[in-house]
């Protein structure tokens, strides 16, 4: 029967009295831990997906919205831009630009965004293929690891996309061609986990199809049947759209549109900075720097976060007071018991330790429950958060800061218990034992 067990027995002997302080403490710690977790993982998400992008060019509107939609696939795109407008930036001989990556967005399949782009996006984000080959022809797709897992898609599966970025069956492109899964990406923790990648041209074709005049379509079919023998339509219906390798965007019709263009500079120079200003001033497009916009976003979030943090600290202080009160008020009913222990040979320091350990047990348990709560909450909401942030949240990774949180909890328990413990150790045992 050591002191620790004795303290433990005393705590669980009065479960209801201890429960309030325990839950309060758990709430405070849980809130802080949850904020730390979210903060860390959201920042990680933003950092992992920077992909060395120096500038994003898109339709005019909110620069933050453009960054969020093009880089993180969170918000809606600001609009589309014509190929002829971005033509200079696609030129591989551009003196300032190392590489440019076009993105076309606006369609989705069961909540996952379909992005029309080029194969090199995999190199930009440093993502490997898990199985299959990269998409080459139109209507071929490469899907992210989370997409494959969530929708149970494998190589060779087909699906029809729907218009817009929300999961809505009514918006399905019924009459467009089906997409074929060509490959699945290895899980990378980047936003590519959540995306369906295809060619830019597939996007145009899905939408062109819809604007096709029904009469013309019938005419088309007549046309086709006339040339049946040459095209072998019956065995492979997608023959004529699929099997020609898409042109590069420089060779394409310059009146076509894309959503945005990601740029990597050869080096951050004065001219590069000028280019951003010049795009914003002289064209119908806008250019924005991801790092700057994300910093702006973080600074906007930090004031809300600050308020929450203060709230959590207040809850912890209140719970520390509650630990203090519950220990202090228990002294009165345990006075005789403590005096008895003194009479059996326990020194004042042992009685002091006993009460302090009780305080520490309370805050330790509170912190433990708090951490379980916050991680459990994250686990519970991970799917929802994944949809909102396009990021797989890790519920069961623990941060070093949580370790500090734990140590702080123990210190708070110690401090809250000090006065009751001192009081207990100073009680006059003779008077206590006489006034029974």
């Amino acid at each position, binding site marked *: *029967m050591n002191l620790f067990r004795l303290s433990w027995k005393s705590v669980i002997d009065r479960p209801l009295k201890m429960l309030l302080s325990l839950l309060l403490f758990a709430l405070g710690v849980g809130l802080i831990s949850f904020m730390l977790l979210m903060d860390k993982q959201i920042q990680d998400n933003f950092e992992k997906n920077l992909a060395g992008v120096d500038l994003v060019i898109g339709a005019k509107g909110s620069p933050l919205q453009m960054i969020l939609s093009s880089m993180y696939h969170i918000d809606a795109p600001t609009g589309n831009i014509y190929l002829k407008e971005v033509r200079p930036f696609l030129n591989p001989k551009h003196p300032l630009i190392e590489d440019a990556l076009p993105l076309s967005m606006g369609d989705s399949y069961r909540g996952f965004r379909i992005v029309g782009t080029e194969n090199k996006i995999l190199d930009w984000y440093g993502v490997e293929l898990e199985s299959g080959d990269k998409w080459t022809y139109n209507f071929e797709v490469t899907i992210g690891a989370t997409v494959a897992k969530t929708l149970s898609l494998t190589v060779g599966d087909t699906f029809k996309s729907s218009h817009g970025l929300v999961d809505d069956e009514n918006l399905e492109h019924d009459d467009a061609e089906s997409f074929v899964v060509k490959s699945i990406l290895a899980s990378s923790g980047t936003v590519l986990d959540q995306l369906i990648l295809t060619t830019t041209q597939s996007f145009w074709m899905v939408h062109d199809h819809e604007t096709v005049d029904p009469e013309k379509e019938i005419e088309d079919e007549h046309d086709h049947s006339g040339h049946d023998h040459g095209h072998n339509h019956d065995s492979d219906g997608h023959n004529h759209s699929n099997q020609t390798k898409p042109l590069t965007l420089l060779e394409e019709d310059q009146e076509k549109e894309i959503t945005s263009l990601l740029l990597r500079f050869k080096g951050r120079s004065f001219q590069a900075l000028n280019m951003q200003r010049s795009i914003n001033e002289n064209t119908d497009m806008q250019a924005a720097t991801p790092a700057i916009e994300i910093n702006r976003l973080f600074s906007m979030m930090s004031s809300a976060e600050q308020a929450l943090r203060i709230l959590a600290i207040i809850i912890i202080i209140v719970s520390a007071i509650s630990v203090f009160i519950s220990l202090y008020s228990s002294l009165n009913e345990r006075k005789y018991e403590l005096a008895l222990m003194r009479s059996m*040979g326990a020194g004042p320091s042992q009685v002091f330790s006993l009460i302090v350990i009780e305080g520490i047990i309370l805050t330790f348990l509170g912190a433990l429950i708090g951490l379980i709560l916050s991680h459990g909450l994250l686990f519970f909401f991970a799917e929802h958060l994944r949809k909102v942030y396009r990021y797989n949240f890790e519920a069961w990774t623990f941060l070093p800061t949580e370790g500090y949180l734990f140590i702080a909890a123990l210190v708070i328990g110690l401090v809250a218990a000090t006065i009751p413990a001192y009081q207990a150790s100073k009680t006059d045992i003779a008077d206590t034992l006489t006034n*029974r």
Partner: protein
Amino acid sequence: MVKLNRVKVVNDMLSLKTNNLSHQYSQRVISFPDITCAKGEHTLLLGPSGCGKTTLLQLISGIRSSQRGEVWIGDMNISELSQSQRDNFRGKNIGIIYQRSHFVRSLSVYENLSLAMKLAAQTVNKDHIMKLLEKLHMDGKAKQITYTLSQGEQQRVAIARALVNEPLLILADEPTSALDDSNTDAVFELLVEQANEVNATLVVVTHDNRLKDKFNNRIEL
């Protein structure tokens, strides 16, 4: 530093001696007659309520420190010890039984006894505790929480607790006043029997006349 090991009384046959002991409460001073008990000798301190019986026991056990006079237990003058030294000495050498038994509420009978050994810095010996409980016919209730026991049973456990460290001196403050006649006899006999077994000196303080004739050594306060 005074050595606090268990006092072994080999040649010295005295186990308790008080000299000129008195205690001052705010309004009055109580003076006590000198008490001398040989080893293994049992003494009854008799007196009406309010005459300071409990105070005397507290002075002897070192729970209350004396302003005047000396208390010798074995060859140790406990009046000279510091508070924590007295706590330590008491745990090892004095077993105390109170009028109403009080235990650590959250612990079982067995755990209360093992706590008594632990607090006296003894190694907890399960066999020893179980044998003791067996002698007091309480072995079947070792796992029970103390406040679920009857008064008589509680008093037996209190006796077991006073004996568990095989003390030199057992002090009993009104051990029978909460008990009926048959329980009084049983508890008293048990007390004497167990005290004899460990060769301890028993000092019983009471106003209970039922115990009066059972002692050869009586001191009226």
